[in-house]
């Protein structure tokens, strides 16, 4: 066997591909499903928290800040293990799927809240005053005047952060969620061949390269706002 044949046999073996592509596809589907759920719920929760924070109730804001700091400081895998292995012993049994979704949603919400909040703060005070002077309530001003401007400024950092957290769906492997990486490692150990891992890697590339690329374009398009 030549070197290149051996390489192909290790990472691109045709039989293995043929046998395991349905599993890989199933994993990809689960990964996409969790990713979409995490992105939608995480961003929505983050936005709600940022709105809540803008009302500046002292005690509420303290809670929000502690929540954010905790989720920024703790590795998601630690949270996943605590919930997955700890909760059943106190009578709350959550599936790996739910634990993964919950943890990643909370983590994304924490980061998104910080970013939205920075965006809200960056809208000039004059915008608030102008809107309030036309009789708009605080909430209406926030929704129709401040947030549309704030969100525009947050798109770039938000995209990057969202991608980074969505990739953490791979952590599901550790608690047996049937997502892409889990399917691939399982297939790899059955097949005794690295091809499934290569398939998973390619699947991740197909999934995330467009998003990474879009994120880069958005960043460039909005870069002038920072200066």
């Amino acid at each position: 066997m030549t070197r290149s044949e051996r390489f192909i046999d290790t990472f691109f073996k045709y039989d293995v591909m043929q046998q395991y592509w349905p599993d890989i596809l199933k994993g990809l589907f689960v990964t996409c499903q969790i990713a979409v759920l995490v992105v939608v719920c995480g961003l929505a929760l983050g936005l709600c928290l940022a709105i809540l924070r803008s009302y500046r109730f002292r005690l509420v804001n303290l809670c929000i800040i502690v929540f954010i700091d905790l989720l920024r400081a703790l590795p998601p895998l630690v949270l996943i293990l605590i919930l997955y292995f700890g909760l059943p012993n106190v009578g709350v049994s959550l599936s790996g799927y739910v634990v993964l979704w919950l943890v990643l949603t909370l983590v994304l919400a924490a980061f998104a809240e910080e970013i939205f909040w920075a965006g809200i703060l960056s809208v000039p005070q004059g915008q608030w005053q102008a809107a309030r002077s036309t009789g708009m309530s605080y909430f209406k001003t926030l929704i129709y005047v401040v947030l549309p401007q704030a969100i525009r400024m947050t798109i770039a950092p938000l995209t990057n952060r969202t991608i980074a957290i969505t990739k953490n769906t791979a952590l599901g492997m550790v608690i047996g969620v049937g997502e892409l990486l889990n399917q691939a490692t399982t297939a790899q150990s059955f097949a005794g061949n690295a091809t499934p891992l290569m398939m998973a890697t390619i699947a991740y590339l197909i999934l995330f390269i467009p998003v990474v690329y879009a994120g880069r374009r958005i960043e460039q398009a909005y870069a002038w706002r920072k200066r």
Partner: protein
Amino acid sequence: MFPVQPLPILNVEDLHLHYGDMKALDGVTLEAKTGELTFLIGPSGSGKSSLLRCCNRLEDPSSGRILVDGEDITQRNINLNRIRRGIGMVFQSFNLYPHMTAKGNVTLALRKVLGKSRKEAEEIGLAQLERVGLVDRADHYPNQLSGGQQQRVAIARALALEPKIMLFDEPTSALDPELVGEVLKVMRQLKEDGMTMVVVSHEMRFAKSAADHVVFMAEGKIVEAGPPAQIFDAPRAERTRAFLQEAHH
């Protein structure tokens, strides 16, 4: 027939505004009648802008009363949003919403505060843009408009709610000199239409020709008030004289 006596629409009574030890307003009393243009002048930090901002409750006065059309707007439980609708405000820095067109800026409050339909709001909005001579710019975004045009849109935005009184906070200070004229022209037109206006500005020539009352303020107090002829040509107070001399340089 009796001659119609203009009614006072704005009464400011012994207004105080303190920030800690600093007295931004120190007992200001002022009255404006329907259709009058009151012009506030004074050195920076004299409290002119604070007074305007109190009249819209963007600042909360420490004590005193402000009556608009007989209603005390400094009451604690008053519905601020209802009050503010009746008092138009124009800012030095325009504060147009950058993510909306001129039309969007003018119609937002009509739709979201007054609950008018889009069609109805646009009818009113376009009429107000017409009034400031910008109906052909209705679909432009603020960054596509000159400073003078932006300020005129801001005036239209305030007018759309049919306020009883309009407050102008240095409306031309942020403009290049060649753009000041178009804004003043709109303001003069408003005055002719019978709008009650309170203006903080440094445009003394405009004050001389358009104002009914000129009020000179310093250190949070009204030093001297009267018709323009008195303030500009025969000021009584020493401080007024000094200020005007300074302003002419």
